[in-house]
Every structure is written in structure tokens, then in C-alpha cells.
């Protein structure tokens, strides 16, 4: 016996639906626009429970299949779909349409400061290059212990906040210092360095502090808090950067 749907799709009507317009920034060097980027408007029907990502899906699946964007898990964990929605960096999969004023057209742009490849897809390589530079892996010295490296709950708590990073680049691409020339390490790299610098099991703090003491390191942070506001995981990024600064000052004096 096969299972039958008790309540057919008529129930969908119970969730209020509305028309929403998305202004999407398009860039496709192979199109007739060439190197120019253009704005495209799409109006779709959405429900109160829909996110910006659902609207983008609807556009791609039903209106214009050439619209290009990244998304993987679609539930705020993989960090693929960071984009500039109504002028602020957010994850499209964590932003409900009803929260970004669907009465007016919602602007959707690629994140700033990284080279755009197509539509909403940017080249993340500069971002990941900075991430690799801070050596985001455990560095130890001495003999390998024969059991686990024990850590107390308090020691774990010290860097708990910065373990939550999903490398979506929302913070780094919201930073006005990063926009200028892309040389600044950026908040994400510093957050991930913080995660190891303050880990009691790690012995590479000196090396990491040395790396971030660079001209393009933590000292370029102007504490504008754009990163903290942009972070979809709610990491206190500016605070983490200040803690790294303080560790450097302690080391120098």
C-alpha cells in the first residue's frame, strides 16, 4: 500500500503570499553587455516563509535560467551564498523576504571587494589566500601525546565565539579598508587566527601574531564594526580583532 498525501497542496494558501520585486545586479562578459554590469528586475510570487534564496531559485528556475549564484546547503551552514542584499552583506538563505521590506524592490548584488566572475559569483581566491596565510591548523611542539589533548571547559570557552566562522566572506567584503586595495588580511582571517591563538592546545600563537603584525594585518582595522554587523553567525568580530591587537601589544612590551 502506498502512502497517500492526507492534505493536498491546497493548504499552501494558508501562508500569505505576495508579489516581490528583486533588482539583481547582473554581470556576464559573454553577453551583449560585455564588461558592463546591469540591473535586472524580476517580480515573483513569494510566501511569508520564503527567504531571498527562495526568490532567487524561483527566478532561476522559472524566469531566467542564466542567473548565476552560489549556494550549497541553503541553510546557513556552508557559507556559499553571502551577497549584498539591500546594501548589507547577508546570507540569502538566512534572510526572510518579509524582513527586508518586500514592498520596495529588493536589491541583490555580489559582495564587494572581490572580483566578480558572473552575476552574484565572485572570485574567493584572495579571501582564501589570506585565510591560508594565518595557518588555520593546529601547530604543536614537543612529543605527540599518546592520548587526547585535554582542555578544560573554560579554556574552550576562551575561543568559542571564533570557532563559529563559516568562511562566507560577508565580514571581509563589508570592510571599507578591504575595499580599497584588497591587501588587508580582512576580518575573517583574523577571526580564524584568533581561534588558534587563544586555543590552549596550540603552540603557534607567536607565528600567527607575527603574521598579523604585518602592515596589512590587524593594525589596519579601524573598528568600524561593519564586520560584526555583517556576520551571519553573530561572531563578535571586532572584539576578536581587538583581542589579537592586545595580545600583540603584550608581546611587544
Amino acid at each position: 500500500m502506498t502512502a497517500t498525501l492526507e492534505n493536498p497542496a491546497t493548504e499552501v494558501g494558508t501562508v500569505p503570499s505576495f508579489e516581490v520585486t528583486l533588482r539583481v545586479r547582473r554581470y556576464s562578459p559573454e553577453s551583449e553587455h560585455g564588461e558592463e554590469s546591469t540591473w535586472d528586475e524580476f517580480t515573483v510570487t513569494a510566501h511569508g516563509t520564503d527567504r531571498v534564496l527562495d526568490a532567487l531559485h524561483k527566478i532561476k528556475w522559472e524566469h531566467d535560467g542564466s542567473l548565476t549564484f552560489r549556494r550549497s546547503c541553503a541553510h546557513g551552514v556552508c557559507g556559499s551564498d553571502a551577497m549584498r542584499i539591500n546594501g548589507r552583506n547577508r546570507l540569502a538563505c538566512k534572510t526572510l523576504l518579509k524582513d527586508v521590506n518586500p514592498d520596495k524592490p529588493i536589491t541583490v548584488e555580489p559582495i564587494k571587494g572581490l572580483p566578480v566572475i558572473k552575476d552574484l559569483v565572485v572570485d574567493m581566491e584572495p579571501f582564501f589566500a589570506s585565510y591560508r596565510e594565518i595557518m588555520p591548523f593546529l601547530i604543536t611542539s614537543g612529543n605527540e601525546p599518546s592520548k587526547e589533548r585535554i582542555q578544560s571547559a573554560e579554556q574552550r570557552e576562551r575561543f568559542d565565539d571564533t570557532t563559529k566562522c563559516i568562511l562566507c566572506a560577508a565580514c571581509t567584503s563589508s570592510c571599507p579598508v578591504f575595499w580599497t586595495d584588497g591587501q588587508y588580511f580582512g576580518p575573517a582571517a583574523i577571526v580564524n587566527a584568533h581561534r588558534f591563538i587563544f586555543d590552549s592546545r596550540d603552540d603557534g600563537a607567536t607565528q600567527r601574531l607575527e603574521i598579523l603584525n604585518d602592515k596589512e594585518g590587524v593594525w589596519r582595522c579601524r573598528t568600524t564594526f561593519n564586520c560584526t554587523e555583517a556576520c551571519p553567525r553573530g561572531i563578535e568580530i571586532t572584539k576578536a580583532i581587538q583581542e589579537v591587537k592586545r595580545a600583540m601589544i603584550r608581546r611587544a612590551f
Partner: protein
Amino acid sequence: MAAGTPDLAAPREAYRRKKSTRTNYELYGWVFMRASGVVLLVLIFGHLFVNLMVGDGVHAIDFAFVGGKWTSPFWQVWDLLMLWLAMIHGTNGVRTIINDYAERDTTRLVLKLALYLAFTIVVVAGTLVIFTFSPCPVGADPSLLPSVCFS
């Protein structure tokens, strides 16, 4: 290239930080900005209070007042410190702004050269004035001179 194959762009150069500078230069710069800021608060408000509030206040300021002040080593050091700290603090601040906003290396270089030139001129001229200032110029109207000229 065989006919018909599309023109592919050459692989891009790998992203590279222009050069790494692992000195403590920016660290000391950052600490200096905070420390000099605190000292400057004291120096500037002390300066304003002494010049504008004490005694006759702003009406007392004339050649004799300034000349008299600079005959004292205390005020010489005070004003010298204020000049140097304010100039280094301000220049470093503008240097930071140039680094943040100038996008091309040549723009950055030109702006910074102009900044350092202005810094040098003001600091050298100011220091010279503080140390070589003569409170009693020969042949001046005695009513305009500070009292130290007559003792």
C-alpha cells in the same frame, strides 16, 4: 592554436600580498596614537586655559605675553612637546587615511611625499621659532615688550 577552439584567457596570476612587512612599525604607530592623544589632551587644554582663562584671559594676549612666556624654559618645553606630538599624531593620522583611501600606488606616493614635506616644514620652522625667538628686539617700542627686557 587550432582553428575553432575558443580563445581562453591565460591563467590568472595567483593572488599575492604585495610584500610582507613584519616589523613592529604599525604596532608602535598604533600605541603612539593612543599615548600621544592622551598627552595632547592635557597639553592643549592646559595651553588654552593658561592663554584664554587665567588673569585677563584672551585680552592679555599680545607680543609681550607670548614673548614673556617663551623666556621660560617650562613653556618652551610645553610648546615644543605640543608642536611635535601634534604634528606626529596628525601626520600619522593622515598617513593612515591615505593608506585607506588612495587606491593607486602613485597617488599614494605623491600624497605621502606632500604630507611628509609639509610635516618637515612646519616642525622645523616651529622648533626654530621656539628656540631662537627674541623677546626683546632692538629698537622696538618699549611699551610692547615683556617685563623681562627691563630687569
